[in-house]
């Protein structure tokens, strides 16, 4: 029996599901070239290049960037650029911290017994089984109450008042990332052959050298995939960011959400197209890296 043989029904169903996954994305990308500013229906591509933007009612007749008018428009939008900067700052900072402390916790849970272990395990399990909004409004309540109390106690006024901002978002992102980093690294530690470490110790290496030269290189793939998962969770996060951001810490998802509740020009689509392209490149890079990794091992 050929294990790779699939019935026509399975193939047809798979095609339908792929179509379902991609139809919205294709429409999204197509509309980023829409000549219509109102963006309700697709009115064709912007036909020509010109010195200045020429409009006919809500239709763009020609633009310095031609069909890519909305992408040029996007590049000039400072709000988007600030939001992109914030998104990346938050994702990089939170991922770095969450990866370090999550890996430490994974080592602790996998290798040691300690009194607070049940607490550590439970607290890492909860964020996975409760909806994000529950955590989000809890954190919002904590920050607003603590900040109100501190502002009052030290009579802080004006700019020195404590408010929600980048820091509160970063701290909260770390909280929902750590459980996932720990899970991934723990999975890697489970399949770990301890005899390598014992060999290193027998050869006279101390704990730190053993960790640096033996343990860490071996769990590195787990740590990296944990970090990558954390990074994508942060980029994608809406709910926690929504409740913990403040003036000046708008991220891209929050910015897009704000636009969706007002007027939507094809600029939003251009932003989405850029985002999809970045994802495409990132996933491709990852595939190349993984393939290289697996061919090296075999």
């Amino acid at each position, binding site marked *: 029996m050929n294990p790779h043989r699939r019935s026509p029904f399975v193939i047809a169903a798979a095609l339908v599901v792929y179509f379902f996954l991609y139809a919205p994305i294709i429409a999204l990308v197509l509309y980023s070239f829409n000549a219509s500013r109102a963006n309700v229906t697709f009115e064709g591509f912007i036909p020509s290049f010109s010195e200045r933007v020429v409009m006919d009612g809500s239709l763009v007749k020609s633009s310095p960037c031609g069909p890519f008018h909305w992408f040029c428009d996007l590049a000039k939008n400072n709000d988007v650029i600030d939001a992109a900067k914030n998104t990346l700052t938050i994702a990089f900072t939170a991922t770095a911290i969450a990866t370090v402390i999550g890996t430490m916790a994974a080592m602790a849970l996998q290798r040691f017994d300690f009194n607070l272990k049940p607490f550590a395990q439970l607290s890492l399990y909860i964020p996975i089984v409760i909806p994000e909004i529950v955590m989000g409004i809890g954190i919002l309540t904590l920050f607003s109450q603590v900040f109100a109390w501190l502002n009052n106690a030290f009579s802080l006024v004006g700019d020195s008042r404590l408010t929600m901002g980048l820091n509160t978002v970063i701290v909260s992102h770390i*909280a929902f990332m750590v459980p996932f980093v720990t899970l991934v690294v723990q999975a890697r530690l489970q399949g770990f052959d301890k005899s390598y470490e014992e060999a290193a110790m027998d050869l006279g290496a101390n704990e730190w050298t053993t960790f640096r030269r033996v343990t860490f290189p071996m769990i590195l793939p787990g740590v990296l995939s944990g970090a990558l998962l954390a990074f994508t969770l942060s980029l994608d996060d809406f709910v926690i960011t929504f409740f913990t951001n403040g003036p000046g810490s708008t991220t891209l998802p929050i910015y897009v959400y704000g636009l969706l509740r007002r007027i939507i020009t094809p600029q939003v689509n251009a932003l989405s197209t850029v985002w999809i392209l970045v994802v495409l490149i*990132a996933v491709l890079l990852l595939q190349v890296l993984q393939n290289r990794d697996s061919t090296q091992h075999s």
Partner: protein
Amino acid sequence: MLKRLRENKSAQGTLLAIPTMLWMLGLLIIPLILTAVVSVGRRSPDGTVIYSFSLENYFRLLGYSTSCANRQAACFDPLYVSILWRSLSLAFNTTVLVILLAYPLAYFIARAKPKQRNTYLFLVLIPLWTNFVIRVYAWMILLRQEGVINLVLGWIAHFLHISFQPIEMLYTPGAVLVGMVYEFLPFMILPIYTSLEKIDVSLYEAAADLGANAAKTFRRVTLPLSIPGVVAGTILVFIPVMGTFIVSDILGGRQVILVGNLIQRQFLDARDPTFGSAASLILMVMTLIVTYFYTRKFGFGEEIVVA
């Protein structure tokens, strides 16, 4: 002192786990306790919290009302109960639909030749990594009155010479269901794929040798062994659907109010954090109860990590 630490395994473990434990204490445990404390408080006229002990918010959620039509002191108002019920049944329907769509695709990928598998998986990752909010917006373009679906239906109708009225799809419960299914589909495909891929090919050969046909092999071998993936996927889909408010906000307009929308509005528009906190705790308890009974029946799939 360093030497004593080196010998004390328990202290080493605690030390390694301390940053994480502090973080989870400060940003998970304390916020949850605070939510519980606020939920039994009262709202002051300017929207701040007066700490007290009253279960009024919970009674209100369960249908107790003091603003009755016919001068009664109290009556049953089904508003919030129906919101909770709507969220629960939407989460249930979404999960079932997602399983039905995800399973054939996961099966298709798992049975593909190893070289092609990566490509097929890659095609699942792109929509997954495209931002959540952007994916909801994409359905706005499709479902609108003048949107792509109505446009295509119009062409078909024109081609077949039938008269066609654009269907109103956006801002309906159906739109919210489709949006939810679309958002969470990849979270089901990946764990099911992982558990299907782990199945040893020799099991199929054994089943064939013992005279089982394709349908029987699927029912007796493939399906039981892929249950851990379905369980993990269900947890990854059901729980977020219960709490999400963007999909219903954007695709449901003001028509479809879920418990997530209720909570969000209490904190932003209505400014009653005490009622919002109570709703949030009820939501948490509801998901915990469902997850508890579900995982007790089927176990907790370790495939949860792959997504």
